[in-house]
C-alpha cells in the first residue's frame, strides 16, 4: 500500500509567475551575500541606500541646472 506524505502545495503546483521571476534573479549576488555576516549584509544595504540617495540628489541638481 502506498504511503502518503505531506507535500507542500507549492511543490505540487509551483507558481508560474514566481518561476518566471526566478529566471531573472542574479544568483552571483546572492552567493556573495550568503558569504557575509548578518551585520555586513545590513551595512551593505545602508551603503546602497546612501548611494541611491546621492544619485537621486545629483539627478535633481542636474534637472534644476537645466531649468
Amino acid at each position: 500500500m502506498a504511503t502518503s506524505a505531506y507535500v507542500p502545495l507549492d511543490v505540487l503546483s509551483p507558481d508560474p509567475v514566481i518561476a518566471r521571476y526566478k529566471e531573472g534573479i542574479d544568483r552571483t549576488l546572492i552567493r556573495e551575500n550568503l558569504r557575509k555576516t548578518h551585520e555586513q549584509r545590513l551595512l551593505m544595504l545602508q551603503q546602497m541606500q546612501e548611494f541611491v540617495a546621492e544619485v537621486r540628489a545629483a539627478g535633481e541638481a542636474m534637472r534644476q541646472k537645466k531649468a
Partner: protein
Amino acid sequence: MIQFRTLLSALQSNGVAFVIIGGVAATLHGSARVTYDLDLIYERSPDNLERIVAALKPYDPYLRGAPPGLPFKFDSETLKRGLNFTLTTTEGPIDLLGELSGIGPYDTVAQHTVEAELFGSTVHFLDIDALITSKKAAGRAKDLEAIAELETIKEERQR
C-alpha cells in the same frame, strides 16, 4: 537612509520586544534588493509600548507622508489606540506593525524567527518561510520578485 545601528541599538537598549520583518529581514537572509524602511512587528503590552516610546522619541517620530504640524503625539496612548504606524524619524523611516499579513500578531510572529548578531546584540528577524508566506499574503505586485529571490536564496543555501 536608515541608521540601523542607532535605531536597533535604541530599541535593544530599551528592552523593546520586536521582530524585524519585510525588506530588511530579506536583506539579513541574503537578499540583494534595496529597501528603504525598517519594518518591525512589536509586542503590544502596555510596558512594551512605553519602551518603544522611550526608544524612539529622541528621534522625533512623525507620521510619514502627513503634512507638517498635525497634532501627532508619539506616546503609549497613541500606540495603544492604533495598530500600524508608518513613521519618519531623524534616523530614517520605520514602520511599526501590530500584525503581519499571513502570520498574525507578535506572539505568533515570534515563533517564526531566527537570530542575528547586530551591533553587539542579538536581534530576531522573521525566518525565510514565514517571510515568503507574509509576502504572498500581502499580494502586492512588487513582492513577486522579492518572493522569487527568497525562494532562490533557499535553493542556494541547500546547494
